[in-house]
């Protein structure tokens, strides 16, 4: 047997046999966990707390206004920072004159950029710190910037044209692409995950029916209610940053690097967070270094600096979801069996890359033998994109799942049957019937647009996909049980509003036989055991297993104290409802607090590290959605009546907040489909709607009946069986709405948002044929 050049000894493992999958179709699976990991919760587990419906522990703080968000932090002697942003989309900075600002009474520090090239309106140029927000604003307005303006391009299609103004010179292109670059266009990029299989040309040739459609999704901005911002405070060489962030670790590392200081000297705190949706994963944000600037201003002024962006800045430079122009080609046999999927997209992440949209095309319908995804990044003079809730997948699913609907029409097939015919996931096969029943699929129009009158109802559906992302090491948790029986969990990840702290309390409570409210969860501080950034729907499933290990360790130690009191062996004990008891005769019991009193020291501290991720039941997360709409074909108004979202998230730790996540994703998706649209003036290159009046987000009166359904799937490759839910439920929404509009009206609208101007234009052109 030949040995590899540098053999790694296999890490020791322990084998568990688990009952995996969905309860309606269980499957026995052997998994190989790291030594020291415990048997995962599976379909046979009798869970008392986990999977229940637990109101979030911080709920009372939030609804009474006592929860402290970054925006609420106020320190003695604190100054207010304010950025000055480029007012033009393309230029060389000739001069930045801060002399007038510096002379304004109350101004304590000034910063200017060293960069000279302006590539989008909204880029960092200068900043000030002053004694009040009003003085800071006045000072910022006194900064005079002289620009040598250059030609610019903000429109995706115009940027693709030959001779379009170059956003970057060839040697300046970010990310050093390995794929061809032509003008502003980088690509084709074939993604690693599901980018290519078989031969698409052959698959299209074998097809009996083919379909080609081109689809467009505009730029959507994250628009969290709490804007990006920090408070930076120096104590000697110690820097403390309160940040509205999805990743306190990234802020720590990014600021240490930017400022040239040790990470150990940086503390980052995020107690509560007012929304991020992917835009708050960077050390500052994609299009602005506001946090770094705030730290520098604070150091310069010798006082804490608070720098929260305003709503305009939030739209201009903190990230967005790329616009994308996507062409999907499908080939199928007459019975609906797909022979080929070809997805070619041109997306613009503004001055950044990463505008790919091929995830759904490459990974849904994985039985299709021939598939090719070709993505292109197109640079424009616009603010850079950031990950937005399943990056690229909502746009990609809008294209693929609209095309699937069109193919079904061409084949004369029920669109749901076409999906079922090509389904590769056993989970989605279960989800289809649950969703169809909840929406009443049989009520849809047999002929699209077939109902009488101007207000037409329709029902549509679409699929979405996502992946199990989880960290397998470097994540820690500490459970402290005090002698008085009180329990604390310390964990360094931040709760971004998803209910993370409550889910972790439930895991501890499950192990210790307590109620979740008995566990005080301390999160969102880099001084506590290392956490993860909250992106990729990975927080619960990266951290939960470490929390469970720590809690399980504490459980064993408490059982050892209780055993002599009960005249039993620790391994014969169980715990529930604040009691520890002999599993075989529950009347032999002792209160958790009584057992804790027996500890030899004042506290038990159980620390655990996340063990490696192992075999999962499925590596993908399945989801499908059904939507009912009413379209007024005379006003172009689209009203969403109902959306049913069926999702796989592994085991939901807290069913209540899991459903909240699903409902939130539906709302964001419907809002994207119907309203949201960043508009840059075509002549001037600046954003005309950088506010929440003209950048429209779904209003309370536009709310629909939102029905979340969770298909619980055991075994996601960790001891809790949790996977993720933050992102996947937004993926199908855009297409489900558009397909419902088609069913209502017979008009296939391939371009979003579905505002009256667009809807009326499409219906009019459809009537003209």
């Amino acid at each position: 047997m030949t040995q590899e050049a540098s053999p790694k000894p296999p890490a020791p493992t322990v084998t568990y046999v688990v009952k995996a999958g969905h309860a309606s179709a269980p499957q026995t699976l052997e998994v190989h966990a790291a030594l020291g990991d415990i048997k995962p919760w599976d379909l046979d587990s009798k869970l008392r707390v986990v999977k229940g419906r637990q109101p979030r522990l911080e709920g009372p703080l939030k609804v009474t206004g006592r929860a402290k968000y970054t925006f609420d932090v106020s320190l003695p002697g604190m100054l207010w920072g304010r950025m000055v942003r480029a007012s033009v989309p393309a230029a060389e900075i000739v001069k930045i004159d801060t002399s007038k600002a510096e002379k304004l009474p109350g101004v304590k520090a000034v910063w200017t950029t060293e960069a000279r090239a302006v590539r989008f309106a909204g880029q960092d140029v200068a900043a000030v710190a002053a004694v009040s927000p009003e003085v800071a604003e006045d000072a910022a307005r006194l900064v005079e910037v002289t620009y040598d303006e250059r030609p610019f391009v903000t429109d995706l299609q115009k940027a693709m044209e030959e001779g379009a103004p170059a956003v970057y010179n060839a040697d300046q292109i970010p990310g050093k692409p390995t794929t061809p670059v032509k003008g502003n266009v980088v690509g084709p990029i074939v993604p690693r995950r599901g980018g290519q299989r078989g031969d698409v040309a052959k698959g299209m040739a074998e097809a009996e029916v083919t379909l080609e459609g081109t689809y467009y999704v505009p730029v959507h901005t994250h628009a969290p209610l709490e804007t990006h911002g920090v408070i930076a405070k120096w104590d000697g060489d110690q820097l403390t940053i309160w940040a509205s962030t999805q990743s306190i670790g990234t802020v720590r590392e990014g600021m240490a690097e930017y400022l040239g200081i040790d990470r150990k000297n940086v503390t980052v705190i995020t107690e509560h967070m007012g929304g991020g949706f992917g835009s708050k994963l960077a050390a500052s944000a994609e299009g602005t270094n506001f946090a770094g600037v705030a730290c520098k201003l604070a150091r310069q002024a010798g006082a804490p600096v608070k720098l929260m962006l305003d709503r305009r800045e939030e739209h201009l430079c903190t990230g967005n979801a790329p616009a994308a122009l996507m062409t999907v080609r499908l080939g199928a046999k007459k019975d609906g069996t797909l022979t080929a999927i070809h997805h070619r997209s041109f997306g613009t992440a503004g001055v950044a890359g990463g505008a790919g949209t091929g995830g759904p095309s490459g990974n849904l319908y994985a039985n299709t033998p021939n598939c090719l995804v070709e993505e292109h990044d197109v640079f424009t003079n616009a603010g850079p994109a950031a990950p937005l809730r399943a990056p690229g997948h909502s746009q990609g699913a809008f294209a693929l799942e609209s095309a699937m609907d069109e193919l079904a029409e061409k084949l004369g097939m029920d669109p749901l049957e076409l999906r079922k015919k090509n389904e590769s996931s056993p989970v989605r096969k279960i989800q289809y019937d649950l969703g169809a029943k909840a929406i009443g699929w049989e009520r849809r129009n047999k002929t699209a647009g077939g109902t009488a009158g101007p207000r037409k109802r329709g029902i549509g559906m679409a699929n979405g996909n996502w992946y199990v992302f989880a960290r397998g090491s470097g994540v820690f948790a500490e459970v402290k049980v005090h002698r008085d029986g009180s329990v604390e969990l310390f964990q360094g990840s931040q709760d971004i509003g998803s209910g993370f702290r409550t889910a972790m309390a439930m895991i501890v409570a499950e192990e210790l036989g307590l109620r979740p409210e008995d566990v005080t969860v301390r999160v969102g501080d880099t001084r506590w055991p290392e956490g993860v950034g909250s992106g990729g729907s990975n927080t619960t499933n990266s951290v939960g297993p470490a929390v469970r290990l720590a809690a399980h360790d504490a459980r064993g130690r408490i059982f050892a104290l209780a055993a002599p009191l009960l005249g039993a062996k620790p391994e014969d004990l169980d715990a529930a409802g604040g009691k520890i008891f002999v599993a075989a005769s529950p009347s032999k019991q002792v209160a958790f607090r009584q057992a804790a009193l027996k500890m030899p020291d004042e506290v038990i501290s159980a620390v655990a590290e996340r063990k490696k991720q192992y075999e999962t039941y499925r590596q993908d997360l399945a989801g499908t959605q059904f939507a009912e709409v009413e379209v007024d074909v005379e006003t172009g108004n689209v009203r969403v009546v109902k959306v049913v979202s069926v999702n796989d998230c592994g085991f939901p730790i807290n069913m209540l907040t899991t459903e909240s996540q699903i409902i939130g994703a539906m709302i964001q998706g419907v809002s994207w489909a119907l309203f949201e649209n960043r508009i840059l003036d075509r002549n001037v290159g600046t954003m005309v709607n950088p506010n929440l009046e003209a950048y429209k987000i779904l209003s309370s009166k536009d709310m629909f009946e939102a029905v979340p359904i969770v298909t619980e799937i055991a075994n996601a490759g960790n001891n809790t069986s949790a996977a993720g839910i933050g992102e996947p439920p937004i993926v199908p929404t855009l297409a489900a709405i558009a397909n419902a509009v088609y069913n209502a009206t017979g008009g296939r609208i391939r371009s979003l948002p579905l505002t009256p101007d667009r809807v009326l234009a499409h219906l009019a052109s459809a009537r003209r044929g």
Partner: protein
Amino acid sequence: MKSFELARPSSVAEARTMLAERPGAIFKAGGIDVLDHLKEHLLEPPRLVDLKSLPGLREIAPQPDGSLKIGPLATLAEVAAHPGLRQTHRALAQACAEAASPQIRNVATIGGNLLQRPRCWYYRQESYKCLKKGGDVCYAVGGENRYHGIFGGGPSYAVHPSNAAVPLVAFGAQLVLEGEKGPRTVAIGDFFVPPTKDPERENQIQPGEVLTEIRVPAATGWRSVYDDARERAAFDWPLVSAATAVRLEAGVVKEARIVLGAVGPVPWRSARAEQALVGKALDAAAAEAAASAATVGAAPLSENGYKVGLLKTLVRRTLLALAS
């Protein structure tokens, strides 16, 4: 925003004095529109003269003859909920009920609603030096003009933003303005100023004048209705709005008022559509004819042609609603 001082007068006369003694001072009622202007530095007044707590300017008083006297400080919510007004001048109540959001309707006044500046996204941002701000271009021309006007021919294409003005024009309201020479009364139809006359204003209120009363004639024998088309169901501006009123005798239209909002620089009364109705039975054919007549003269920009179809639908639908 710039710092300013807040002056709190106790009478209209004192308010006018407080305004006059600080050049650049402005009046404030509900403050919704003023606050937006301050935040965006479209106005940097040294003093705000707060009219909000002036006594006697907030009542909605139905008169014995069926007419209404509306104090300009009545909030949109109060107008929308007034039981008498809802009976006699339904379109006005409906227009106020549909505006903005509940929070804004509880603060915004009907006077402020009439006098507010346009919501055009170029006007509303300091960086665009447009015609309305003394510049020499209307950025909507050849720009992002989906929400702009289809009537009036410019040179500024910002649409008049007031929901309430649309039914008030239909009802032939009179506005009482109190200035240096005492009160004067202006018919609302003459009150608004098109950009051909002066793009930097939308009405003829003079510096220092205070709107003190809105008089709405009796609408005995009239039926009225307001409707609009919009993107969001709440917290949005109409794409097109319509206030329609008819006086019928034996099923035949004796008089009609058709006024459109968000299509031109002033509330847009369509005399042509009104003429198309007079003497006709109010039926589907008459409604259709009036709707078509209302579109005559529309000259859309590059992105707002859809408004022509919307106004046609709204005129037809509101008339049919009055017929039933």
